[in-house]
């Protein structure tokens, strides 16, 4: 029996076991000290600190530059924060007062912000105005245009299916934890869709009214010009009968 045990031990010793360790090669990153880079390679990767939780999609890259500032460099991110952490890109700065959750997609020329919970605050490059993106809405910000301000589109309601797919793929918890969050979000999303449709209607009505006013003014100017031309012609005819 002893011999058998010995043989088994030798056999086990000889077998070359490779276990793929996910966390072993990762560097430590201290959020408060800054100056560290986090890259998700082929799989998604999570970064947790007291201030923020970031789930990086495969091949996403972020840089923690200094205290409380995270630069989103490229890729998709799911971010949860309860602290005034500042998220930065060349096109906009984003932060949250209170508790927020959101999905962020960063490409070379755009940043897309999808608010899942709380009110995210945004200032775009070249403008000091603070825009609020409540839960259930999304906004896209692009490069700085000729007017010196980053291009930003009107906030829109989140598209349900793509958002949920993206959220599910980056959710840091278990499926059982995700389901109740999703149910809670559905209600928030419904309200946001309704609110935005009303807002869009108001803006569209205002735009139409403004356009109509412009058209009316142009018509008045044209008529005045015509009257002046006619007057000149009459004057010319009177002088040259």
């Amino acid at each position, binding site marked *: 029996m002893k011999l058998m045990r010995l043989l088994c031990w030798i056999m086990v010793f000889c077998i070359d076991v490779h276990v793929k360790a996910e966390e072993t090669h990762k560097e430590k990153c201290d959020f408060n000290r800054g100056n560290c880079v986090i890259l998700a390679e082929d799989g998604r990767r999570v970064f947790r600190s007291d201030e923020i939780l970031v789930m990086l999609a495969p091949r996403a890259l972020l840089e923690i530059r200094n205290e409380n500032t995270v630069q989103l460099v490229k890729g998709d991110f799911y971010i949860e924060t309860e602290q005034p952490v500042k998220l930065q890109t060349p096109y906009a700065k984003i932060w949250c007062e209170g508790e927020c959750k959101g999905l962020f997609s960063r490409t070379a020329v755009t940043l897309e912000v999808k608010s899942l919970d709380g009110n995210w605050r945004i200032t775009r490059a070249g403008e000091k105005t603070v825009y609020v993106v409540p839960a259930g809405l999304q906004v896209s910000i692009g490069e700085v245009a000729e007017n010196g*301000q980053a291009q930003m589109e009107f906030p829109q309601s989140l598209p349900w299916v793509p958002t949920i797919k993206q959220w599910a793929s980056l959710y840091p918890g278990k499926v059982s934890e995700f389901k109740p969050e999703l149910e809670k979000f559905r209600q928030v999303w419904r309200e946001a869709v309704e609110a935005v449709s009303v807002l869009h209607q108001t803006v569209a009505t205002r735009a139409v009214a403004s356009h109509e006013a412009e058209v009316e003014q142009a018509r008045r100017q044209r008529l005045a010009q015509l009257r002046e031309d006619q007057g000149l012609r009459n004057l010319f005819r009177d002088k040259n009968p």
Partner: protein
Amino acid sequence: MPLILYMRLTSFLCFILVMMLGWMQLYSRAREIFNGTSEIKAEIGHLKSTTAHERIAMALEREQFLEFRQNVATLMPDVLKSKGLGEEGYPYRSLASSISRSEAELVRQTIAKTLFERAKDNFRQEKFPKAIHGFHQIIDHFGFTPYVADSYFLLAESHFKQNELEACTGVIQEMVELFPHHELTGFALVRLGRIYQVQNRNEEAIEIFKTVMRSFPQRDVAAQAKASLKGIDL
């Protein structure tokens, strides 16, 4: 008795198996060490990690440059208002064109226009090789500007003037594919008909002229095609 024999035999076989595994392991390790495979593997690993670090560094540098560019772009409108006018303002306008895409597009349009005017001048002065070079530049590098169709047409004409009939036919064919309803394509097809006429391919020429009359609603094109058709009949 047979049970003890069986046990011993099993132990012996296990021992042999373990020995064999051990030897195989030893052999493979020794092979890796003595033929340099392990060193190459280590080097590949090192190179991979260096490349990954360099890639990250590059992405971060690109990000910093992008940030700088966007910061400059936010300052440009005020700078252009105060300093961007006249000859002295050229460096500021040039900087603005390099940081803002729409400005860059305007610059591209201007370059294309200058090139086109220069090539057209060469065409008028009958410097056809220079004109051909210019039109090719516009077609190859400024494909989305409004001067492309004109460049194709004048390129075909330049080839025709140099008696390069095959090249001329090739350009006209490209025009038919790229701008099938353009007025200049109609004129180019009339030119093609005349080439066929010169080459004594009258039937094909007639067919071309008739097609032009049928397919191009523009009065000038149809009139030219009709006149050319009459010329063949005479």
